[in-house]
């Protein structure tokens, strides 16, 4: 039996055809879905996202070209500027939602998925799983992406805008985050975990 997390209705668990999705009979909330190879997909998207995340943080996002001089900023530099402007709370918020939380999310995913793939049970599985659930809503890479674009248009009248490598990495990362969210399958994770003990 399962209970809907949005209306608490008890319902029987049914086996699903490939790509099927179970919704609550009463309120329509998604209960679970069956993705073919959901585990492998989660793993692939996570590893891809880690590479892109590293790029998005290592390279400059955008730059301004002015009198032959190019001024660029990275994500972390943005946070540091806010901090130096005496906007410490804002700096902390931007840091948390665009760097820390997305990093923790990817780290937790990899920590759960990679050992399971190798047939080992990661230590503190439950703790990391809960941390992953808690961190999820606070990673806002896709919003940041849109914010950078809006900022670019705003600056267009000041100077020539140069897009950096990190901007493209960020755009791809946004897609991978969406893919991770769509394939995230807690039932599969727990099934693999309990199969090991």
């Amino acid at each position, binding site marked *: 039996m399962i209970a809907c997390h949005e209306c608490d209705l008890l319902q029987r668990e049914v086996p699903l055809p490939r790509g099927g999705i179970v919704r609550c009979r009463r309120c329509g909330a998604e209960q679970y879905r069956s993705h073919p190879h959901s585990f492998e997909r989660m793993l692939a998207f996570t590893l891809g996202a880690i590479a892109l995340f590293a790029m998005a943080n290592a390279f400059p996002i955008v730059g301004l070209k002015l009198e032959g001089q190019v001024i660029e900023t990275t994500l972390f530099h943005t946070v540091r500027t*806010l901090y130096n402007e005496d906007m410490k709370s804002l700096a902390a*918020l931007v840091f948390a939602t665009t760097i820390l939380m997305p990093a923790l999310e990817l780290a937790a995913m990899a920590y759960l998925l990679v050992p399971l793939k190798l047939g080992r049970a990661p230590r503190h599985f439950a703790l990391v799983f809960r941390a992953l659930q808690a961190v999820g809503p606070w990673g806002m890479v896709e919003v940041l992406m849109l914010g950078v674009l809006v900022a670019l248009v705003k600056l267009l009248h000041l100077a020539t805008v140069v897009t950096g490598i990190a901007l493209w990495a960020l755009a791809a990362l946004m897609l991978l985050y969406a893919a991770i969210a769509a394939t995230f399958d807690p039932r599969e994770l*727990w099934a693999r975990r309990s199969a090991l003990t």
Partner: protein
Amino acid sequence: MSRASATAASLGLLVCHACGLLSRAAPHAHDAYCPRCGARVHWRKPNSISRTWALLIAAMVLYIPANVLPMMYTGSLFGFQSDTIMSGVVFFWKTGSWYLALIIFFASITVPMLKMIALVVLLVSVQRRSRWQPVQRTQLYRVVEFVGRWSMLDVYVVAVIVALVQLQALATITPGPGAIAFAGVVVLTMFAAMSFDPRLIWDPMGEEDGRAPA
């Protein structure tokens, strides 16, 4: 249970929010932990209504400075200027980027306001134990949860602009107090939406015809 609409709570079962496992509650237990993942499980989120009200009212109060105080100060050779959210929208509209004006207007002004109105509707209807349109109200809650994050847009815009323009002598741009208030609104409404328990919408449904909750 004619329509087999038993809820987990009515049968003494608790559902874990983190991993989805159903577990049987110990009798008279107030807090319990999920036997599989160890997360705290509740019948309903604790003090859901009062917590949501508290966070929501705080967000409403902050919404005023967020819209009135400047998000950004711009100083250049040509003078000093302060921008609120609305003046940013007007700027984009006038310079022909009407689509950006719409995005910012939607993400920064409409979404927070609609979100707060929606939470008030949900809270009031739950407190009155209303049985009006539970499916739509649950959908409303889902939308509120989903769109909340997009209001961070303006905060990021300010952050990126400040970081880029700081680096040169062309102009100085500094973030204003409105940006902090605005970020506060977004974070508080996100917490408010998280502390609201949508199962409360459905609880009055089990009390049909004076029957015991079944």
